[in-house]
Structure formats: C-alpha cells, structure tokens
C-alpha cells in the first residue's frame, strides 16, 4: 500500500474518521493509530513486522536502562549494544551480500578464488529509515537531551507511525514523541494545508516522477546505443524524477501527518534553487542531513575543528550518506563526488554563504544567482548519473557517451517532450511558492475560492490523466 494507491485512498479516510472519533481518549487514539500503522506495514509483507517490533523493543528497553543507570561506563555499554543490534539487523539485511561480494572480489585481485555464500533475503521496506529514526531516540536519551518513555504504546507509535514508516522524513524523538503524549486537536487550517500538501505530493509523484521514469528507464537501459543528446535528456529527467519521487513522497507523508494533527520535520526546501552544493544539502533530504550532522558530524568534531579535520569529517559524512542509500559502489562514489564538490567551499570558508532564501523579496533571481542555480543543478545532475547507474563502469560509460557534439542537440530536442514543460510548470509554481513549506500554500491562500478550487480541480484532473492506475510505480526511496 503506497500513498498513490487505491488501497490507500480507502485506508486513509477510514483511519481519519475513526482517529478523530477517538479524539476524546488519547490512549485509545494512540492505540488505534498504532494498530493502523502495523496494518499499513503488514500490507506489504507480514514478515517485515518482526523487524520493526525488534527495533521497538530493543530501543525501548535501552531507553529505560539508560534512565536507570547513572554510571557512564554502563550507559555507554547500553548504547553500544543497542546500536550494535540495530545496525547489525540493518547490516545483515542490507549490506551482508555487498560485503561478501566485495571481499571475494578483493581476494580475486590477488588470484585467490573464494566462493561467495550470499543470503537470499528480501530487504524490508523502510529499514534504513526506521533504524535511524529510532536510534535518534536512544542517542538523545543517552545524551540526556530527552527523558526516556515508559509508555510503550507511545514509543511503538513513534517508531512505526504509518506516514513515516516507508521513507521518512527521519523523525526525532524530541519533535515527535511530545506530540504523541499530548491530546491532538482538530485544526481546520492545518488539515486543509495537509490536503494541499498531499495534492502537491501526488502531482510531483504521479505527473512528474512517473512520467520521467518511462524516459529514464529507457535511456539507462539503452545508454550504450543512444546518442549523447538522449543521454543528457535521460540524466535531466532523472534529476526531475528523483526530486518528484522523493519530495512528493515527503509532501504526502507530512500532509498526512497534518491530517492526524502532527507536525513532522521538513524534508525538502526547494533544493533545485540552490546556489551551491552546501546550500543544496541544506535543502535536500534535510532530515537525513541533520541526522548525520547531529549524530556523526558534530561528535567527530564538527566545524569547530581544524580545516583538515573538517575536510576529513565531510568525506566521512558523505561516504556514510552514500552507503546509507544502498549497498553498491555507485552510491559510495555518488557520496564521494558530493564531498569533492563540498571541499572547495569548506577550504574557502564559503560553505555557509547561502543560508537565506534565494532572491529574497524579489520576483526573479539576478543574473549571478541564475548562473549559480544552473551550475549547481548541472553538478547535481552529474551526480545523479552515478546514483541511477547499476555499476560504476555503466556510469562512466554514460558520462563518456555524453561527451559528444551531438549532446548539444538535447537543448532543442528536449522541447519535444511534453513532460519537460510540465517539469518547467512545476518549477515555476515552486519558485513563486518557495517561501512556504509547500508551494501550493501560496497558491491556495491568496486567490478567491472559485479560482482556487478550479486550480485544484485542474491539478486533480492532470494527476488522474497521468496516473498509471493499474501499475502503480513504487517510490525510489523505498529500496533504501
């Protein structure tokens, strides 16, 4: 059951009405939401539930033990054991086969032939998300930033709350658990904002991402026979696809949270309007970036260390971030590529130059800003080629294929793709709504009702027109 499926269109209203009908009894409301979340998860595969239950139990017990123990040595041991179990599960399911193959390949370089004994495991959906999501709680309790909870229902709900279960945003206990403890009140404007955000998320997923996917899949499957212009078009559309797919999912998750009275962390802030790579990473998958910042980068010394150490820490963060995405060298190279783009900014002290909104208070960006936005977009697009390719050699061949005179034809060929114009329309809407958390908030509030509703009907119509109802495309980030 994905947010763009018919099953979910039935599931969500049922949950919404029962949930608010129980609003007088917080405990019952939380129990109901927990059951609904488990049901949502079991819909994929009941076997996955055991891992989420294990993750819940381990972190719940660790939290209780951490609160009871004052001895630092024991506290550290508890945290290490908890991390070992959580990362161990993640490692076995996600990385075991990768390590075995890498080990065998490494030995084969020295002429030693080993036999690879891999495990035939299915990767549980969302495992990387809920592992990080849950560990943030235990680490915060360990750091005494947050008191552990004895309320197992609230904690289990925090771990498995269904809008976040599959692909985040990676929540923090400090943000979400306090919201679970207190009675939620139905807020009309928050609910309407939630509906708008879901609508915009559906548009980005179904109209942008799924339409781009058809072209991208064809181009990446035939990259060795296609001309450079097609490869550039393929890379460009993948850049839109991954944004539409993941930010669309995040918008839907946050919007659903609003319908249930929650305020989840923001995950995207118009990343393709970034003026440099540092700004891009402050705007792309923000919940993961801040997780790594708080739980890895800062403990390693953060930005207060020497420049040499900052550079080292940056490489570590991006390598880990790449590896988090998948057990493949392509993701590691993708992370390394971004680290290499980041380092010059650190060395020159310009990594926090752009923390304000782009073209603040202006209708359009200046020439310099426009150039910076296009350059950053181009650099990010090159990185996505590694992200999308199956192997590093495939990515390098793809890039080689783009180094042709023919590639320039892409600039006029692209105009013949209707989806390109839809991507442009999305960018225009997002540009004008960039001050808001969701671009549609701007378009919803200032118009009179007739125009506003007409706009929504048009969006819904376009979504249905593009929807592949029978063969719904899953979300790219579910595999992580």
């Amino acid at each position: 059951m994905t947010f763009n499926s018919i099953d979910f269109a039935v599931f969500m209203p049922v949950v919404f009405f029962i949930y608010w009908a129980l609003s007088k009894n917080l405990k019952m409301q939380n129990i109901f939401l927990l059951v609904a979340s488990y049901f949502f998860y079991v819909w994929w595969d009941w076997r996955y539930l055991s891992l989420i239950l294990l993750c819940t139990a381990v972190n719940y017990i660790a939290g209780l033990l951490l609160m009871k123990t004052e001895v630092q040595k024991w506290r550290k041991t508890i945290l290490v054991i908890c991390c070992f179990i959580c990362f161990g599960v993640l490692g076995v399911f996600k990385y075991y086969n990768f390590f075995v193959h890498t080990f065998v390949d490494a030995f084969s370089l020295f002429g030693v032939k080993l036999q690879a004994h891999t495990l035939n495991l299915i990767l549980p959906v969302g495992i990387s998300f809920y592992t990080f999501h849950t560990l943030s709680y235990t680490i915060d309790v360990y750091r005494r930033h947050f008191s552990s909870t004895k309320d197992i229902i609230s904690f289990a709900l925090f771990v498995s709350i269904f809008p976040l279960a599959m692909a985040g945003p990676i929540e923090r206990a400090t943000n979400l658990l306090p919201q679970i403890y207190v009675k939620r009140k139905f807020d009309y404007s928050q609910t309407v904002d939630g509906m708008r955000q879901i609508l915009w998320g559906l548009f980005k997923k179904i109209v942008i991402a799924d339409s781009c996917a058809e072209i991208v899949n064809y181009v990446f499957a035939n990259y060795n026979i296609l001309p450079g212009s097609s490869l550039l078009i393929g890379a460009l559309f993948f850049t839109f696809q991954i944004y539409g797919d993941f930010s669309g999912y995040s918008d839907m998750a946050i919007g659903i949270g609003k319908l249930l009275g929650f305020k989840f962390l923001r995950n995207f802030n118009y990343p393709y309007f970034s003026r440099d790579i540092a700004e891009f990473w402050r705007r792309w998958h923000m919940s993961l970036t801040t997780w790594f910042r708080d739980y890895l980068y800062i403990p390693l010394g953060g930005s207060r260390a020497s420049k040499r150490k900052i550079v080292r820490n940056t490489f570590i963060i991006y390598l880990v971030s790449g590896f988090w995405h998948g057990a493949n060298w392509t993701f590691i190279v993708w992370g390394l590529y971004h680290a290499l783009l980041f380092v010059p900014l650190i060395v020159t002290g310009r990594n926090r130059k752009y923390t304000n909104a782009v073209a603040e208070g202006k209708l359009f960006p200046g020439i310099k800003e426009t150039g910076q936005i296009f350059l950053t977009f181009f650099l990010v697009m090159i990185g996505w080629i590694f992200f999308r390719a199956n192997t590093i050699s495939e990515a390098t061949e793809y890039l080689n294929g783009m180094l042709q005179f023919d590639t320039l034809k892409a600039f006029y060929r692209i105009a013949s793709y209707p989806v390109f114009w839809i991507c442009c329309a999305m960018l225009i809407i997002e540009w004008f709504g960039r001050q808001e958390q969701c671009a549609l908030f701007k378009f919803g509030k200032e118009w009179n009702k007739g125009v506003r509703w007409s706009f929504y009907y048009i969006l819904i119509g376009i979504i249905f027109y593009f929807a592949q109802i029978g063969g719904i495309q899953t979300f790219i980030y579910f595999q992580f």
Partner: protein
Amino acid sequence: MKKFLLKFIVFAFIGLVMIFILILLPPTPKVSESLLFIDERKDSLLIYVDSPRILFVGGSNLSFGLNSQTIKDSLHLNPINTAVDAAIGLKYMMENTGQYIKKGDIVVLIPEYHYFFTDYNNASEELTRTIFDVNINKIKLLSIDQLLLNFPYLCKLASSKCIPAEYTHVEKSDVYSVHSFNQYGDVYPAYRENRMHFLPYEKITDSFKSEVIQGIRDFERNIYAKEGILLISYPALQDSSYINLEESIKRVENEYRKNGFTILGTPQKYMMPDSLFFNTPYHLNNKGVAVRTKLLIEDISKFLNNR
C-alpha cells in the same frame, strides 16, 4: 471538523458532477481511433454471421494470433474472432460473447494465463473506455465490484476529455487501431511483420484465482443452455516466457482437467520459438500465426471427427 467535512463534501460533489458531465461528452478523436472501437463491429459479426459458426474468445493473443480465413477454408465454419485486448478482461469478454450465442455455435475460449492470477472482477482503462466511450449500454455487463474498481479509471477518462492533446495529437497506429482488423476480426497480417524488441514475461508470483474457473463454468453453462459447445485451448506463448511461467501454466492446465472442460491440445504444444513473435510474448508474427492456426485446426478437427 464540521466545516472541513462540509467543504470536503461540496468539493467532492462538484468534482463528481464534473466527471459525470465529462463522461457524457463524445470520445476524443485520439480514443476514437483506438482498437477498442472495434468492439461494435465485432458485436455486429456476432449478431449477423450465419451458422455454422466458430467463435474465438480471448485476449490479444487471439487478435494477433489467428488466420480466420484458413480456419474457414479448412473447417468450413464461419469464424468470428471476438478478441480485442486482454486488458478488457476475461469476465467482460465471456459475458459480452455470451449474449450472442446461437444454436450450434462452437466457442473456442483461449484465455491468456495471466487471467488466472489477477482479479476476475478486473478494472482497467480499456474496460472503462469500452463501456463509457464505446457503448454505455454494456454497463449492465459489469458487476457492482467492477464499477467501483473502475471508478479511478472513470476519473482518468473524464480528465482526458479536457486535455488538448487528446484532440490535436491523434496518432494513427497501424497495429492498435480500429482500422487494424479484417472482416473476421483478426489484426491484418501486414501489421505484424516487423519484429520489435520485448522482454519475456517474468514468473507470476500472485496466487491462483479460483473465481476465474467459476466464471468459465458459468460461461459454459450459458453456452450449453443455448445449445452451443465450449472448447478450451491454450494461448501461443514465447518459449522463454513459457519457461518462466511453467509453474503457473501447469496449475491452469490441472484446473481445466479437474473441472472436466473439453480441452484442445496441451500448453506445450502452443509453446513457440521466440522468432515467431512480433511485439509481446503473446503476439505472433505472420509465420507464427500460420503455425498456430495450423495447430488449432488440427486440434479442432480432431474434436469434430471424434464427436
């Protein structure tokens, strides 16, 4: 909450009214060219072709896989190839054909294997368009479940009528067009010549749907009530796809036998080399059609001779 619900209901109601108005509009030029509009012509064949008749019911494996002229010449029966597109669903195909059965008709049902592993009350864009764009009177052939399941496609159909490209970009496909069929309902041979790239089917992981067998039993009962005969055969399938689907194919074969249907041939007999296919593992090229038609004539003749 009340304010939200009220506004939501008003918003949804206006939306539903718009959908209703839009589906009443005539089909767009783009859709009017599609192969779905052959349904009316195939119905005319079912009404007006005289006995002795042989009716072929199935998905595109049949529309792209039969030479009805050869059948007519060999068996001296009047053939009608009712097949249009597999996506319309087996339930609709059987119920639609069932209306026009005449005394003495021989009905050869050749369902694609995938039907047995998908919902019998299927929903699809093709089915929705066949009802709401081609012939609204056929809405009676849909169950309530099907109507509900087809609602998202109805929204899609309604929205398509507001899309300018549906009126301006009318692509005239040689193969998937209302003009692609000959007088018996087969896709013209000239349109099946050039081989296109396609991948074999992957293993079916969905469970077997016994209600499909029940549906075939009901179809059989209907045919016998009208003094016709039902024969069941197997679709022609690309060999590499056959290997991937073998487990599911065996299940279908066993179910046919268990239910005592009159069966023509075996699945293996209709497994064919890759070179005989055109653009999907079920769509035969001209050579493939000749081979398959010959095999089918052999099996039907055997049945007729033993009768």
